């Protein structure tokens, strides 16, 4: 049995017939049976991930034309926008700006083949996030809810979790009114993912708040944040990063802010 616990990258089966992948709250066991792969996912407690001939085992099976030698493990941003609820709401003065560091649980994508010709096995959510709605009862977008401390200080690498990416959000209040920020919506499919030591970072997001009767302008950077100098790009954005995207970002009272 292989005990390769490398969080990201290529995991070889070699002569062993199975690999174990382990993160903080999730363990995955992939077993090779001929040209089939069996996958068992386990969350929560540290019980052994069971699989065998037991028909009760809850595994998923993938059939390939020829035996698979390796699987690739890659972090991805969640497949929906994220609504971040800072634990402590913030009031941002006119013309002021603030930097937040938000920790976002990533998805884990397992695929075979080379990165250009990949066959996705599974996209697993590292944490089961609650659904939330950004908009009113008639129109809006389905999102995941993330409660965050929305730290003002850059987190240290010691506090990093392997399945969470740090997203630096810079909010500029360009309006002449105070911005009461109780939650904001991030469309992270425009962000690249970067690996810096043991930490994951997303491309920084800049939000310009233009007032309660205006939409916010959002820039998704192409580069790694300055806090992660020398970081390696580990996953491309699923949609091209955009500059000056006009979207509703803050919600609550009225149409654009709370």
């Amino acid at each position, binding site marked *: 049995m292989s005990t390769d616990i490398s969080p990201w990258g290529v995991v070889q089966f070699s002569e062993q017939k199975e690999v174990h992948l382990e993160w903080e709250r999730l363990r995955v066991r992939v077993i090779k049976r001929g040209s089939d792969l069996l996958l068992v996912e386990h969350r929560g407690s540290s019980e052994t991930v069971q699989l065998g001939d037991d028909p009760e085992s809850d595994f998923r099976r993938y059939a390939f034309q020829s035996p698979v030698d390796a699987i690739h493990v890659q972090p991805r941003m969640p497949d929906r926008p994220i609504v971040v*609820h800072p634990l402590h709401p913030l009031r941002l003065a006119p013309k002021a700006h603030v930097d937040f560091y938000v920790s976002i649980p990533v998805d884990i994508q397992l695929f075979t083949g080379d990165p250009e010709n990949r066959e996705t096995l599974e996209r697993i959510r590292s944490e089961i*996030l*609650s*659904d939330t*709605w*950004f908009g009113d009862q008639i129109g*809006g977008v389905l999102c995941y809810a993330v409660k965050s401390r929305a730290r003002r200080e850059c987190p240290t690498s010691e506090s990093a979790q392997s399945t969470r990416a740090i997203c630096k959000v810079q909010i500029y209040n360009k309006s002449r009114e105070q911005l009461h920020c109780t939650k904001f919506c991030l469309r992270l499919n425009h962000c690249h993912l970067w690996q810096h030591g043991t930490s994951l970072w997303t491309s920084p997001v800049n939000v310009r708040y233009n007032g309660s009767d205006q939409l916010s302008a959002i820039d998704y950077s192409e580069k790694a944040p300055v806090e992660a100098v020398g970081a390696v790009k580990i996953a491309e954005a699923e949609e091209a990063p955009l500059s000056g995207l006009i979207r509703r970002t803050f919600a609550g009272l009225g149409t654009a802010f709370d």
Partner: protein
Amino acid sequence: MKPLDLNTVLYALGILLVGLTIVFAVSRLITRMMKPHFSPHHLLLAQKAFLYVGIVLVVCTVLIHLQVNLTAVLGAAGIVTVAIGFAAQTSLSNLISGLFLLGERPFEVGDIIVVGTTRGVVLSIDLLSVKLRTLDNLFVRMPNETLIKAEVTTVTRFPIRRMDINVGVAYKEDVKNVIRVLKEVVDANPNSLNEPEPLILFKDFGASSLDFLVGVWFEKSKFLVLKNSIMREIKERFDQEGIEIAFPHLTVYAGSDTRPFPVQVTPN
């Protein structure tokens, strides 16, 4: 009018066959081209509009080649229409209702609607009727006139819905504790939306229970998964917390309401 020769008839038949083939092919092509950009409802409308207009044009062309005087035909058609109008009032009513339905768009193809006791997915909106597939897979043809007259609920019109669950607990339970537990159960369910906030209401002093209403918002496609999970979770959590789910209590008095019902215990 000259007598028709075989060539003219064959030519007209050829126009009919080729014309109808082209109409059906182009109608299908238009549907395929529009599919990525338009809703199924609009696709159906465009396809039917093109089909009907195309068929009429082909038939008119064939009639012209057969040297039929269209003016006379149209005049006769007017008279026939009046006659048919009297004979087929219901069909005409459905036809006109269908036009209103298409204009008003209270629902679209793919929506789930409720009309009276019928609940189903809209398969098509035609000129005379709307076709539904019920949730237990029955085919229902509903005349347009019925839909115009009846109250129609479009279940899937808005992207999110609220599921109302009535929960009754015994009178001995602590109301604050019940509200706390219900809130925790709803918050922990990943399919319940955080926003809009769930509604937890102490609704009533019931006959046998304290009645609570739990209103949980969810994305419209998650009805079944939420319903199954949250009902189970409420029951499990109430069992853990020792909260008694109430059931109807009935006290039977014999004679005076101040005297207890006589019960006699006899040995075996």
